């Protein structure tokens, strides 16, 4: 009695109870057998549960369990055979209904039998390792009814026929179907699979193979996809209505394989309606469908991406290499933006913003934008155009939108330093001529460039803005201290530019008119008085001037001209007629600039304040110029633009290229030294790789150039070649 609580009690059989009647077992079984018959015949209402239970209980207690069990098997088998016959006899369409009804009956009977034999289920069956009553009933049903030779194939055929009829549009009794498939599932998942699902999948594969063949011959791509999608949805709906949920993956797999995967290539490349056509025509619905369907197939999306990429590359390449389209840089960039917008929209609406699609789009743009070496220039010109006039009267958000789009194109550029070069030039022109529309927009773009490329990239651009601001202050100071002294001579506005920040051209001075020269000298002495140790030089090629002029009939106009033009016009204060040579001598303006400036003064209709003799479009060395007395204009203020080449001419372009190449040299060298300083020893290929990596945010260095830089560094004894391995370089501190 050490652990009384843990002791388990075993109830011994009732030894004191003696079976009086030797036929006891037989008699009791008869009662139970009779009850089972009654249950199957729907006559159970008169039976006493307690009595039956007690009899079964006693039979088990008195070791007649085996007899009870085998009796049950026999009786049940007998009834199932009866049922089987009645099902077999059922006619055509009633077959399934009969089967379903009998199955329901059997289930109910089985439940009752299990209840009255509960004691056997509880004690005898586990100890004798028999099948529990309920499972026994299902197994017998399976073996006797479902697998009977006359029912098994008939059942399969009937079910498959119903599915076929539903696929061709007929309405079938789905409830009945569900009951039957449910029965198969209840009998065990392998019964469902072997007797139905396996055949179902085979038949479906055949069906869809044929159907897809027929569709692909007769439909265009969009229509085919619509049909495939509908079939796929039908199958899923079918599963949800009357099949095992686990069948869904299998049947959709069949549809995907037969209807999509086998025809994938053909669909994508279908003439007049394939993927490329959908992209061209912005068929969002169709594209979305294709995306959703192909996503189900391994490599399906890869195929779409490949075709889309090659299409975008082709279109883009065509766009950037078409000489017609290169004539107008603003339009060129606008086309690029439109192309990007179009595909962004497609990816957004049809491809659910799939990252891999976005990457493909980006890499395509990067590919073709860099095919044309003038892209950086054009993008900068586009910005210039927008910031000069394009953004007037546009809300701040829209400005941001345009700038963001430009930044996106900028990101694709490999030669970001070339862009910087042009951008600087264009920005300088905008700032000096006061043409920029919005300071906020300018600054916002610089901030964007800064976040994209870092401080270095924009420091000079920011320097330009600072110069503009300080110049304003300087001028205020200048006039405050010297205002009285100057009287009513010409007014001067100087912008002091820091050398290095601005894209200054080699100093091309000219002779300023005496009136101007005087005030310039005054400014020089004022400025140098406040800032010692600096040097001022005049960039006459970049300035502008406002002139008041009186013409023949006494009408006055204010002329807005460049510094050069001002110099020329001032000469006509003392003379009415001057030859080209005379002008050149007096002003010393460089030839090409002088020609351009004379052209704009004499050859532009409505702005011809000078007359040229003889009249012709081009300026020749022996031309003569006369002050045009008869000049008239509707406006008081007349702006005389210089004939400027907006986009660079071929030689200028070459020149800029060369400058860019020159600028790159020190950057590459610096990168090499930086790398070697930390690595000490490195082989050639690795240096090239690392340099490329370091500089790729600005430009893509050419390996040949890198090699030249390395050689130059070896000459200057920054590096040396390893004595054993000639491919290795060593850093010399």
């Amino acid at each position, binding site marked *: 009695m050490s652990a009384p609580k843990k002791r388990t009690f075993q109830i011994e059989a009732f030894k004191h109870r003696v079976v009086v009647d030797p036929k006891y077992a037989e008699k009791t079984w008869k009662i139970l057998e009779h009850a089972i018959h009654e249950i199957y015949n729907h006559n*159970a*209402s008169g*039976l006493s549960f307690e009595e039956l*239970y*007690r009899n079964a209980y006693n039979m088990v207690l008195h070791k007649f369990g085996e007899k009870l069990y085998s009796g049950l098997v026999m009786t049940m088998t007998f009834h199932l055979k009866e049922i089987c016959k009645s099902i077999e006899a059922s006619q055509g369409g009633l077959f399934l209904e009969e089967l379903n009804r009998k199955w329901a009956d059997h289930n*109910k*009977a089985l439940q009752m039998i299990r*209840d009255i034999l*509960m*004691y056997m289920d509880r004690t005898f069956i586990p100890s004798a390792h028999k099948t529990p009553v309920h499972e026994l009933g299902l197994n017998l049903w399976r073996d006797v009814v479902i697998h009977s030779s006359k029912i098994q194939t008939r059942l399969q055929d009937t079910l498959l026929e119903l599915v076929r009829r539903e696929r061709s549009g007929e309405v079938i009794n789905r409830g009945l179907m569900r009951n039957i498939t449910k029965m198969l599932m209840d009998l065990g998942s392998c019964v469902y699979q072997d007797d139905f699902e396996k055949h179902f999948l085979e038949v479906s594969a055949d069906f869809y193979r044929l159907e897809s063949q027929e569709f692909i011959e007769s439909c265009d791509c969009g229509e085919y996809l619509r049909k495939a999608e509908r079939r796929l949805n039908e199958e899923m709906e079918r599963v949800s209505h009357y099949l095992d949920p686990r069948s869904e993956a299998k049947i959709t797999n069949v549809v995907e394989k037969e209807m999509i995967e086998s025809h994938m290539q053909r669909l994508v490349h279908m003439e007049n309606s394939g993927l490329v056509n959908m992209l061209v025509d912005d068929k969002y619905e169709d594209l979305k469908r294709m995306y959703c369907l192909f996503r189900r197939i391994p490599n399906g999306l890869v195929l779409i991406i490949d075709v889309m990429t090659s299409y975008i590359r082709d279109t883009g390449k065509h766009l950037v290499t078409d000489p017609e389209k290169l004539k107008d840089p603003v339009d060129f960039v606008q086309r690029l933006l439109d192309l990007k917008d179009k595909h962004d929209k497609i990816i957004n609406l049809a491809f659910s913003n799939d990252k891999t699609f976005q990457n493909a789009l980006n890499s395509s743009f990067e590919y073709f934008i860099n095919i044309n070496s003038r892209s950086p220039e054009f993008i900068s010109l586009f910005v210039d155009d927008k910031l000069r006039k394009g953004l007037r009267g546009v809300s701040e958000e829209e400005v941001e939108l345009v700038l963001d789009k430009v930044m996106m194109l900028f990101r694709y550029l490999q030669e970001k330093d070339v862009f910087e070069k042009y951008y600087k030039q264009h920005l300088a022109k905008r700032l000096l001529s006061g043409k920029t529309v919005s300071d906020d927009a300018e600054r916002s773009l610089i901030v964007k460039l800064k976040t994209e490329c870092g401080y270095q990239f924009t420091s000079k651009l920011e320097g330009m803005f600072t110069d503009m601001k300080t110049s304003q202050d300087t001028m205020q100071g200048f006039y405050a201290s010297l205002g009285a002294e100057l009287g009513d001579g010409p007014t001067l506005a100087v912008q002091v530019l820091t050398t290095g920040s601005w894209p200054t051209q080699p100093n091309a001075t000219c002779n300023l008119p005496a009136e101007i020269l005087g005030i310039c000298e005054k400014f020089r002495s004022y400025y140098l008085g406040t800032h010692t140790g600096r040097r001022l030089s005049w960039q006459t090629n970049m300035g502008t001037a406002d002139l008041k002029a009186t013409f023949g009939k006494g009408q006055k106009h204010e002329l807005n001209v460049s510094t050069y033009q001002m110099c020329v016009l001032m000469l006509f204060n003392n003379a009415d007629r001057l030859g080209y040579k005379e002008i050149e001598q007096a002003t010393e303006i460089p030839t090409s600039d002088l020609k351009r400036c004379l052209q704009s003064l004499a050859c532009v209709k409505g702005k011809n304040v000078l007359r040229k003799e003889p009249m012709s479009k081009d300026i020749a060395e022996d031309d003569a110029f006369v002050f045009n007395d008869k000049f008239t204009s509707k406006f008081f203020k007349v702006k005389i633009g210089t004939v400027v080449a907006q986009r660079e001419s071929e030689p200028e372009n070459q020149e800029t290229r060369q400058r860019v190449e020159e600028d790159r040299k020190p950057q590459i060298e610096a990168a090499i030294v930086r790398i070697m300083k930390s690595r000490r020893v490195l082989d050639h290929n690795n240096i090239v790789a690392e340099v490329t990596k370091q500089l790729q945010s600005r430009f893509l260095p050419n390996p040949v150039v890198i090699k030249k830089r390395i050689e130059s560094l070896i000459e200057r004894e920054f590096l040396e070649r390893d004595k054993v391995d000639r491919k290795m370089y060593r850093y010399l501190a």
Partner: protein
Amino acid sequence: MKKEDTVKLISAEGFEFVIDKEAAMVSQTIRNMLTSPGSFAETQHGEVTFPEISTTILEKICQYFYWSLQYARGKETEFHIEPELTLELMMAANYLHT
């Protein structure tokens, strides 16, 4: 008490106990008798006869049913069993699957 909520248990001697269905269903056997899908006589009349259980034992069983419900609700009290009833009570418990 409504008739549907109660059940009549009749002992070998014919003594009738009317108790809550809920209490009776503590016994798995009685639960099956009352809920089996086929309409057995017990389900129809709402009474069960136990020809092999004496009144004394059946009374004890009914007490046990109510005690068991309370115990399940968290009221932990002792259920007293007179030693002389033990054997018969156990046989009945086996039969009733309690």
